[in-house]
């Protein structure tokens, strides 16, 4: 008897699932239309692409030779110039002076494994070179996720929730992100970011980056501008330190030379310890 009921139940459930499955498949993913394929997939920064094509030369000896009068090697200078997260924020006078003072420290090289630790926000949006400059975007109705090779995950919740109440919120490296879809554009609101370098380059090299307070507020419009290109228009407002909101844009190109995200774990075979302030190569 139980067996007959079970079989009948299975058949009924199967018929229902079979009838509803095609309808579920026809429902487009968030941000997808007949002409716009959405955000999902593997992407690399336009800057990383330019490095690979040689449009930005950071590999040649000339690119790595500082000018005779001192200053940045030209390759490094060009890369910094094109990275808008390394731009000059609209500080109020007090913080402009503090940032300048802070910029004159030389710092020390961080340990290699620290350089390829998962990035926080907004560094994840410039996709650290330690992550080979690419990330994967996964879009679901409830949230959009940005995944990096070093294990970094940015959650952008799109299920209609608000930011947590103040008593339930504290600063974290990634901050708290909620999003909503405006057509094919994902509009993201981020708060509660922990104070620290906003650019991965500020962690990888002893160079300063914008100094934000924990009250910094980020608004992003992430959209596909053509089949091969994403663009993130980011507005950063810091009521404690900025005279007005700071607007930057980051572009991404579609990755076609690999179809999956591989994991990078810098502890696996670390042979480049820092000795006397210099990276070295450990013999076998």
């Amino acid at each position, binding site marked *: 008897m139980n067996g007959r009921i079970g079989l009948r139940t299975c058949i009924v459930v199967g018929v229902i699932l079979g009838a509803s499955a095609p309808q579920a498949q026809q429902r487009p993913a968030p941000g997808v239309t007949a002409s716009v394929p959405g955000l999902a997939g593997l992407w690399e920064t336009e800057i990383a692409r330019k490095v690979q094509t040689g449009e930005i030369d*950071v590999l040649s000896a000339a690119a790595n030779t500082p000018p005779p009068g001192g200053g940045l*090697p030209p390759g490094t200078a060009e890369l910094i110039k094109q990275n808008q997260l390394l731009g000059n924020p609209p500080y109020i006078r007090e913080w402009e002076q503090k940032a300048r003072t802070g*910029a004159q420290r030389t710092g020390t090289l961080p340990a290699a494994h620290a350089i390829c630790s998962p990035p926080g926000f907004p560094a994840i949006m410039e996709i650290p070179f330690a992550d080979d400059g690419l990330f994967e975007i996964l879009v679901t109705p409830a949230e959009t996720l940005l995944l990096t090779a070093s294990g970094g995950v940015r959650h952008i919740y799109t299920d209609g929730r608000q930011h947590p109440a103040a008593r339930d919120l504290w600063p974290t490296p990634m901050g708290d992100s909620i999003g909503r879809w405006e057509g094919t554009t994902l509009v993201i609101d981020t708060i509660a970011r922990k104070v620290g370098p906003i650019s991965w380059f500020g962690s*990888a090299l*002893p160079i300063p980056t914008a100094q934000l307070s924990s009250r910094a507020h980020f608004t992003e419009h992430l959209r596909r501008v053509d089949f091969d290109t994403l663009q993130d228009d980011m507005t950063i407002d810091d009521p404690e330190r900025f005279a007005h909101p700071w607007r930057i844009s980051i572009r991404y190109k579609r990755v076609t030379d*690999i179809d999956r995200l591989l994991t990078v774990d810098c502890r696996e075979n670390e042979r480049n310890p820092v000795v006397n302030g210099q990276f070295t190569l450990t013999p076998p």
Partner: protein
Amino acid sequence: MRAHPIALGVSLLAATLPVAAHHSYAMFDQTRQVTVQGTVKEVQWTNPHCFLQVLVSSHGTMSEWSIEMLSPLAMYRAGWRPASFQSGDKITLVINPLKNGGYGGYIVSATDARGRVLSSKRVHP
């Protein structure tokens, strides 16, 4: 005209960027390219960097060279596979040598016994 804080900061440094990797390449002499011929002892297809361990004979003395490459992810995108070279393969390498004169360097290209060439630079970005 106000000075750029970043320009002020890094003007004190001879900083080179860790491109597609987790560290600077300042330890390698990027002004020189050296050709090394030998036999592959071991392929370390590992993070954060892949390495080729190569046995090189010179004037009757055998030495082991460590040839640093990019991450498996970056090498894969440049056309390499874990079995592109295997233990015992003859190999001709072009490298940026270590500045300290040690047996090692950063890979520019590798050629196998059949003349097939692989580099660490992506052909199709």
